[in-house]
């Protein structure tokens, strides 16, 4: 199949970007989307033009490195699929495909289609963990975890940190990412002692970088792992509780 590409090329966070047009001819429908870009890059290299820079690594939908805005949809047209698992059979012959980086103030462009998502790590660093130093753990079967709680925790823990939720959001909010981490840890008995401090700390840092959630739910649709916005509701509830409870804990009734 033959497709036309309109690809965003940009030299850096402060460089002026623009769309460039390329054509990809004779692509097999069995090729993955990123393999199609590989082929375009090989042709660009042969023609003496610098290849398109895009982030990718595992190419099996789990590392969360890849992330392209394809025809205005994060990770493209197939639901529940990261860019690297998208295949050309989902496109039609002769189609024009528009490829952009994630667009969000919290994710500055590094080059072409590569953005800096380190704001996510800043959120995790202040609370996205259970404080347990190596060696301090009791026997794993000491605390039974109801199966449904473990499953719900796992649903949230499936987040790959790709940033599609932020890219999809009209406000560039980081709620779904933050709520997924909070949900993963706070649904487990092990996560209870720090639950409300975690909610407050993560939300406070999140708000320094990202916009506010106004319940568009675009994030849920864009999420390659299908993480539910129910977790946002839980995070909000815990955040409200934390405003009272954390002060009480600090003796500031």
């Amino acid at each position, binding site marked *: 199949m033959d497709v036309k590409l309109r690809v965003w090329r940009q030299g850096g966070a402060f460089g002026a970007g623009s769309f460039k047009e390329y054509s990809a001819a004779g692509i*097999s429908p*069995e*090729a993955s989307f*990123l*393999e199609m870009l*590989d*082929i375009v890059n*090989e042709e660009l*290299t042969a023609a003496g*033009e*610098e*290849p398109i*820079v895009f982030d990718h*690594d*595992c*190419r*099996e*939908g*789990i*590392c969360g*490195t890849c992330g392209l805005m394809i025809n205005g949809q994060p990770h493209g047209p197939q639901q*529940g699929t990261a860019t690297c*698992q998208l*295949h050309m*059979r989902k496109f039609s012959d002769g189609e024009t495909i528009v490829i952009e980086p994630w667009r969000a103030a919290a994710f500055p462009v590094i*080059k072409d289609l*590569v953005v*800096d*998502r*380190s704001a*996510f*790590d800043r959120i*995790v*660093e202040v609370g*996205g*963990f*259970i*404080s*347990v*130093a*190596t*060696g*301090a*753990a*009791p026997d*794993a*079967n000491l605390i*039974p*975890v109801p*199966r449904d709680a*473990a*499953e719900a925790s*796992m649903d949230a*823990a*499936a987040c790959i*940190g790709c940033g599609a939720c932020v890219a999809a959001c009209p406000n560039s909010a980081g709620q779904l990412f933050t709520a997924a981490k909070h949900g*993963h840890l706070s649904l*487990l008995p*092990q*996560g209870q002692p720090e639950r409300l401090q975690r909610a407050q700390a993560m939300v406070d840092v999140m708000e320094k970088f990202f916009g506010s959630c106004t319940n568009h739910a675009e994030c849920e649709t864009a999420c390659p792992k299908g993480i539910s916005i129910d977790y946002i509701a839980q995070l909000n509830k815990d955040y409200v509780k934390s405003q009272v409870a954390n002060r009480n804990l600090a003796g500031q009734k």
Partner: protein
Amino acid sequence: MTITLDSKVPSGDIADMWDNHRFNIRLVNPSNKRKYKIIVVGTGLAGASAAATLAELGYEVEAFTYHDTTRRAHSIAAQGGINAAKNYPNDGDSIHRLFYDTVKGGDYRSREANVYRLAQVSNEIIDQATAQGVPFARDYGGLLDNRSFGGAQVSRTFYARGQTGQQLLLGAYQALARQVGLGNVKLHVRSEMLEVVMKDGHAAGIVTRDLTNGTISSHSAHAVVLATGGYSNVYYLSTNAMACNVTAAWRAHRKGALMANPCYTQIHPTCIPASDEFQSKLTLMSESLRNDGRIWVSKTADDARAANDIPEAERDYYLERIYPSFGNLAPRDVSSRAAMRMIEQEKGVGPLHNGVYLDFAESINRLGKDTIEARYGNLFEMYERITDENPYQVPMRIYPAPHYTMGGLWVDYNLMTNLPGLYAIGEANFSDHGANRLGASALMQGLADGYFVLPYTIGDYLADYLNTEPVPTSDPVFTEVEQAVADRTRKFLATKGTRSVDWFHRELGKIMLSNCGMARSASGLEKALSEIPALKDEFEKDVRVLGESDDMNQALENAGRVADFFELAEVMCRDALDRKESAGGHFRVEHQTDEGEAQRDDVNYSHVSAWEWKGPGQAAVKHKEPLEFKYVKLAQRSYK
């Protein structure tokens, strides 16, 4: 440099060695730990767990990753599970049995003492991960569930759906993030280590390149830990992530660290077959699928019928036929070679005749679709996304693909390479899996090294350097290496040839896969040893890398990695040629039993082959570490 390989294995009974060793090695006083700086390169399971644990202990840690965040390392892609000797299912497991299975699974080519220690700490890993919030699968009573894996007759594998590696890595990532947030770890992301720096025979630090702007800089420390993974990408097509490479280990090798058993590579039996030639990587389907899937091909060669049109009586469930007691759960090397033989007999399935069937029809009938979906739903979805076929209705097609490398930097019992102050942990070292790794043991080893071994053993080395400063980065040893790194980078850009880096990588992969892959012969290896240097020569003259060195430049990053793969490929072939026996993943066609199984030569090859770098174009020199087996009886491995 004279090299003596001292494994530093403690004396005494194997069950007491680790305890005795921990008592005998030197400790660093808690208030002195902050006076030491340790560099950890790589932040996968081994690196992140080590960096977090060292920081918790009080050391000053600097961690480096070429990813944009530490949560991306390829440990994340491990699907099936992690082994431990908990014996929760009460099926007769024990530390000794896990030890025994691992040594046997490795075809008696690993160091007994290391493997025993691995089995000993395996249980602590499960405790630690659970406390961190890793959502392992549970039964209805809320207790942890187990499943079985290849090469074992007990259920000892803990899992989190098909995403066990992801969840364990997130546990380690979060522990590391906590230490970064507390200011105990300085983290460098998008930063690739390009050289180890040595001073007076000791590791003094590393030189890195910032991948966003090309800045080359030096970092010094009292000790350097490499947790940089394996080298399956030497085959170009593998289940590894695109960026996985050997550069960190290889640059250490060029500085004198020995590369042990590089020919021991694992070809994983259950991957999705390639669909065409521009395929960029192969996707693994978890080995856990073999718990409920049955592997078969048609009894007739070149059978053009669709899978569901082939009647039961005309199917050959060859693993169940050849290995009745292990059946579809025969170890990886054995299963892979069996699949290879089916293809050689022209029984391959799929459009390119490059696969075998993995069929769930019987399990779906017996257990119901819901149970199968609960166990493997995400894997089935992934399969369907890639192949556009529904595995609930038609059997999966699978074929072996390079997946893991048992070989790696030689390390002693303390996980230190032969270069003082330089450590290697996780897949980057060679120590625990012998000639073949069992499923669900990579996660176990990476975390054992990072959480529970290195943080203790490193103190023994550091104790000598109390109140000393690391070598300053202004020292000529650093500035010279920085210059060499900058020159090498510039040279790739200045070559201005006609072919892309990927083209050379693909060609190298073809040479390696056909001559140093699932089956190896003296003539094939010799052929590879003449083709690789020729291709490397061509690479040096004709590679085309566009763009600048002071900018994000992925082709440039890749050029350095592929250049190192060329040199590694040579020593892999040399090692494979030298090892005139078959063991685990290393299968020499000249050395097989009448039934086509690997035939070891314990008299002549019961040793670790550790190769010393002698310079570009020079043949590497082999050193031997003899392997002694006191607790496991050497036997022809049988899974019948």
